[in-house]
């Protein structure tokens, strides 16, 4: 006879086992590999090299003479993720407030529509945008030309700056629905009576937003932005399909660089070095997340 107290533990076993199998084991393998010299091009050679791969992160320079390959990709990644997450949260907040508004008729239709980008597989969404933003066939250029905003079509993916911004734009498009929906559910939990009380006290819309909506929504914003940060950091497919990290490596973020080091620049890199890059990324994202929770978490308590 199984004691009642042990039932929860038994029920949780499948989760723990699958978590260990599919999360910890691969992560452990990556961690282990990061101390070895190993490459797909030389599958039978595996040599322990200690911290050499981590030193390589800061020493190996490829196209950029000033910064190491890893640091260049890292810097680019931080900028890319920073802008993308910031836009997702700001636009997400605006979008969810709009959808929550009493004055918006047909909000149910919009709520359904807003999920669409999320429901489309990312790879397909990226393909769609590649053609939407195309300089010859894209509807965006067509509109801009018709409205006389531009004289000649813009090739969004052909210069480093526009490619960088365009990939962010597409990433924001793909990630926005999640943010909007989560924030919307947070908004709907705010009791109407709070606003009524504030109205009686003579508070305006801005005061209501900053004194009622935002403080109550803070935990949701915190969670959503954290998740969004982690996901955006790992974003690979959108960039890979749109630009493959080009032109001139301008969109080569850390995940793209890790892929390149594992599969394309194998002679310079290999799995060992790619693993070291991955571990560095994991540590960095964990570190940023912890700081984030600490700072914003405190704010939420007060």
């Amino acid at each position, binding site marked *: 006879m199984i004691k009642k107290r042990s039932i929860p533990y038994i029920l949780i076993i499948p989760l723990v086992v699958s978590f260990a199998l599919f999360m910890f084991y691969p992560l452990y393998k990556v961690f282990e590999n990061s101390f070895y010299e190993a490459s*797909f*091009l*030389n*599958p*039978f050679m595996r040599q322990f090299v200690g911290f050499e791969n981590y030193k390589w992160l800061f020493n190996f320079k*490829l*196209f950029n003479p000033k910064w190491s390959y890893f640091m260049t990709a890292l810097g680019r990644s931080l900028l890319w993720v920073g802008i993308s997450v910031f836009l997702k949260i700001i636009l997400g907040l605006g979008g969810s407030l709009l959808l929550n508004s009493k004055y918006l008729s047909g909000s149910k239709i919009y709520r359904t529509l807003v999920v669409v980008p999320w429901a489309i597989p990312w790879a397909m969404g990226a393909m769609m945008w590649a053609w939407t933003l*195309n*300089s*010859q*066939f894209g509807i965006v250029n067509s509109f801009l030309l018709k409205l006389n905003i531009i004289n*000649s*079509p*813009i*090739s*969004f*993916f*052909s*210069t*480093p700056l526009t490619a960088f911004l365009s990939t962010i734009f597409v990433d924001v498009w793909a990630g926005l629905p999640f943010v909007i929906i989560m924030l919307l559910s947070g908004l709907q939990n705010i009791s109407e009576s709070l606003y009524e009380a504030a109205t009686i006290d003579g508070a305006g819309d801005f005061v209501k937003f900053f004194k009622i909506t935002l403080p109550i929504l803070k935990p949701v914003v915190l969670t959503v932005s954290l998740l969004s940060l982690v996901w955006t950091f790992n974003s690979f497919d959108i960039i890979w399909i749109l*630009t*493959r*990290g*080009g*032109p*001139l*490596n301008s969109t080569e973020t850390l995940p793209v660089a890790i892929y*390149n080091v594992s*599969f*394309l*620049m*194998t*002679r*310079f890199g290999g*799995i060992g070095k790619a693993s070291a890059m991955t571990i560095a990324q994991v540590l960095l994202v964990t570190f940023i997340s912890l700081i984030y929770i600490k700072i914003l978490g405190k704010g939420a308590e007060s």
Partner: protein
Amino acid sequence: MRKVLVVLMVLVLAVVLFSNEKVLRVLMPIGGGYTIEDQEVIAKEFEKENPGVKIEMEFVGWGELWNKIITSIGAGAAPDVMYIGSRWIPALAEMGAIIPLDEYVSPEKRALYYDTVWDTVTYNGKIWGIVRAMSTKVFIYNKKLFEENNVKVPTTWDELLEAAKKIYNPNEGIYGIAMAGKKFVSTVTQFQQYLYANDGRIVDENGEVVINNENGVEALNFYVELSKYAQPGILEWKREDLIKLFETGKVGMYIDHVHNALKAIEKGVDVGFFLIPGGPSSTKPYSTVIVTDSIAISSQCKEKELAIKFMEYMTSFEKQAEWDLKLGFVPPMIKEKELPEFQKWYWKPYIEVIKYGYPEAVNIKDWEGVQEVVLEAIHSVLLGVADAQSALDQAARIIEILQK
């Protein structure tokens, strides 16, 4: 009930243990005209002719083929027979991942193909694959735009540039030439067309890196010069997508496969062909890059005899001709050109140019790495970050390390 189950299990076990069905794992690509159905037909036919043999085909998209191959080799689970881009042969041979096939290639088999076809699968003096698909490329041009602008078919680079200039009319959305610049393998091949046409090479016959010699610099400068009369922002285009632009009838010319030319004809474009003219430093009047895909056998394969048999079956004259006709590939076997389909006017230039061709990746030890480096050089010159000489010097410096 339980008894029945036990009996069943014993039966299944017996069948598994005592059946001497031989299984051959074959890795095949999908996409770019390759369908699962077409390829499974070959497996089924082979199984029918060879009872007791099971062909297990695994399919993976072209974009993931390289990763799939090297990861499965690393994991010790490589497919027995692999369909590969011949440009990967040096790397795979160096890895010890595939076996040399010289002893299995009979003199008759050898004589079936053009010499240059064998060059694409030869590394260190040995044959590592049997060619399954081949492509050459020539210029496809819009006859109407040529006539309207009074342009003759170019036979030199000067004439080529002149033609592009004359047709170029961006206000009307008409471009002299369509070009590729996206970070993608076909962009490297597009550049190689000009590089080879100018007697340049990435790596020469002796394995020396020569991409930054005069011929190479001249070719890259010409590529950039020509791009001024191409559609704007060529860096967002890969060669595979250029047909969409050409089909609209707003592009003078571009370099591509025959099957894309046929697509344009279907859309009503009056299409003509001309061979890629040799550059100012060239000794030959014309040029093309010979690209092949081949079938290789993994060194982890335990059923070598069977693998060889299947490979020979797939690449027999009949099967090869059937395949080329179905997919619209340039015939790698000399005799194939006598087939009625290959007599058609649009096939002629593609077959004629074979004799001027040079393989895409001969002597290049690490294609994937070289590809990244060459793309970096092309991008930096197209974006005006570096001049052709310094960009190619930098590329050569890195390729030299990759060649070690």
